[in-house]
């Protein structure tokens, strides 16, 4: 799963200047970090160290060095194909989740309807059901005899069943469903901090709804958008269950290949090298993304 989560939410523009620079955290506060660090250490750092150790063992067949083995794995055309598929999957998932999530978040924050709690529960619902169950649900909907095809056939929109299952599109659909709550919650947090009267100020100053959104709402919620995208992207990069079930072997990504290497081919070493490669790749993309954001912010802030 996700290995890196840059904490965009805590870098709120408003709080930044009031926080005194260079003041040291009192030692007592460090103890508050201890339980979290302990759990991370046992459940994350130790396995990571094991994976690194596994990857660093010499190849029993060729006895080549670990670094040349890593290079060989990364530079193979097959892994390159896996990489492009994984990146495309994560990017598409992020884009679709953003396109669906922003309007939902806006509605949930701004609506005064009594039914908005139902909508909120609907958004959170995917988090309450196991990923496997949700994905199997999609198989029932998208399959050749699935709900969607039966409906289209009954309405005579199509004459033979459409093949959705085990395609890239089906995988994106499933991932968006799973990861949408993260996008919505992240954007909601940003939108909720915007004072409605700031938007009203823009309106009375002559901005119509679109220009108010463009010049006020969107820039003020950019942090939430950035955080939501980083979250969804990194979760999609490491996702295994959805590509495995909805891709059905036809959509091969790094995570499914790692599983295959470790548990089907039982080549733990290659699996470990691929794991490190995936983690590094995700980290690299997120770092580039963070740098880009900082650039944009510095440019905007003058």
């Amino acid at each position, binding site marked *: 799963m996700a290995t890196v989560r840059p904490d965009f939410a805590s870098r709120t523009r408003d709080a930044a200047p009031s926080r005194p620079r260079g003041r040291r955290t009192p030692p007592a506060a460090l103890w508050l970090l201890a339980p979290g660090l302990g759990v991370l250490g046992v459940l994350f750092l130790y396995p990571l160290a094991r994976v690194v150790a596994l990857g660093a063992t010499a190849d029993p067949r060729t006895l080549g060095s670990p670094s040349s083995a890593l290079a060989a794995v990364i530079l193979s055309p097959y892994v390159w194909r896996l990489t492009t598929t994984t990146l495309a999957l994560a990017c598409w998932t992020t884009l679709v989740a953003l396109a669906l999530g922003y309007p939902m978040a806006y509605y949930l924050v701004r609506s005064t309807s009594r039914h908005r709690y139902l909508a909120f529960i609907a958004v959170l619902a995917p988090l309450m059901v196991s990923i496997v169950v949700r994905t199997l649900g999609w198989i029932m909907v998208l399959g050749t005899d699935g709900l969607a095809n039966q409906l289209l056939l009954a309405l005579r929109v199509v004459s033979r069943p459409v093949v959705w299952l085990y395609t890239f599109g089906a995988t994106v659909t499933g991932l968006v469903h799973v990861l949408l709550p993260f996008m919505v919650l992240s954007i909601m947090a940003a939108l909720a901090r915007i004072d409605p009267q700031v938007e*009203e100020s823009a309106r009375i*100053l002559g901005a119509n709804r679109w220009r108010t959104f463009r010049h006020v709402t969107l820039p003020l919620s950019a942090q939430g958008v950035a955080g939501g995208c980083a979250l969804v992207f990194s979760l999609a990069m490491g996702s295994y269950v959805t590509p495995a079930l909805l891709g059905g072997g036809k959509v091969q990504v790094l995570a499914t290949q790692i599983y295959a290497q470790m548990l089907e081919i039982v080549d733990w070493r290659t699996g470990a090298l691929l794991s490190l490669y995936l983690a590094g790749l995700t980290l690299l993309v997120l770092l580039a993304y963070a740098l880009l954001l900082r650039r944009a912010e510095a440019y905007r802030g003058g």
Partner: protein
Amino acid sequence: MAVAMTRAHPAVAPAAPPALELVGVSKSFRGVGAVRDVSLTLPAGTILSLLGPSGCGKTTTLRIVAGFVAPDTGQVRIGSEDVTDLPPHLRHLGMVFQNYALFPHMTVFENVAFGLRMRNLGAAEIGPAVRAALRLVRMTGLEARYPRELSGGQQQRVALARAIVTRPRVLLLDEPFGALDRQLREEMQIELKQLQRTVGISFVFVTHDQEEALTISDRIAVMRSGVIEQVGTPDEVFEQPRSLFVASFFGTVNVFEGTVSGSDGSAILVAGPLGRWRVPARAPVSGACVVAVRAADVAVRRADRDEADDGDWLSIHGRVENIVYKGTTVLYQIRARDGSLVLAAGEPALRASVPVGAPVSAAWRAARTHVFPR
């Protein structure tokens, strides 16, 4: 677009149409009447205050004028144009909020320039206009700051500049100084009044602070439960309140119950547990009534130096129960013979000659007495 800020508006031009008119405006939220049949006129170039306790409908009225709330019935007219169905961005108004509502992601300059940009003006026009507006509110030199780098008072000046730079037809102010401390608030009130004279824009000013309303306004509309109780100049609403609510909104009042027992031309006779009083009649009252006297109008005297009531003065007798120190004044709590409590204001030095426990008479001019139906 006129953006020259120093030119005085021809506010005194004869027969100018009112800047703003509300005609029979009502609005209910979930069946509860927030604003009920409100009609108001704002003469061009003047300041009208909407004054009342929280929940009286004054802010809803302002939001109806702004276009954020659509009235159920009635009409909003700005400069004789019916704007009832016009969205806020086409009404050409300005608005200042209590919490400033500046754009946090924009500098002071960008904040003030926003309204001009939305009117698609070029940089050549925007620059001088923004600087002129900032000069008017004495914020020159802070153009590059962000709102979070300014104090509350400075932010409110920027909000003012942002609202007047587009030369709105009416400027709406929703408790603009509510978040400022007292001294700054009083400074800003005087500055706002001067600013209004300079730019000549008509203001609608919402406040729950009666002192602020008296200081700032040309006219005050006192609201209660969605209804306008009284509209008038500050003098009128203060000196001639038309209801007990209006009277008690401007400072502490003593209230006595009584019955109108008759009238003779310009005065009516009221009989109550504390005596029979002859008070000037401003409006016809009969039957059960209440008599209201401001504590500030009641003078305390020692009862042993009793002076007979002449026709001009009314009085009650009692004993000083408590004296509350208020700085420039003291508030006497006097227990009258019938057990009721009467409040009277005095100078702090009075405490030496009229201490707690002293028998006193509390007297006020009959002309300062108000009678309302019960």
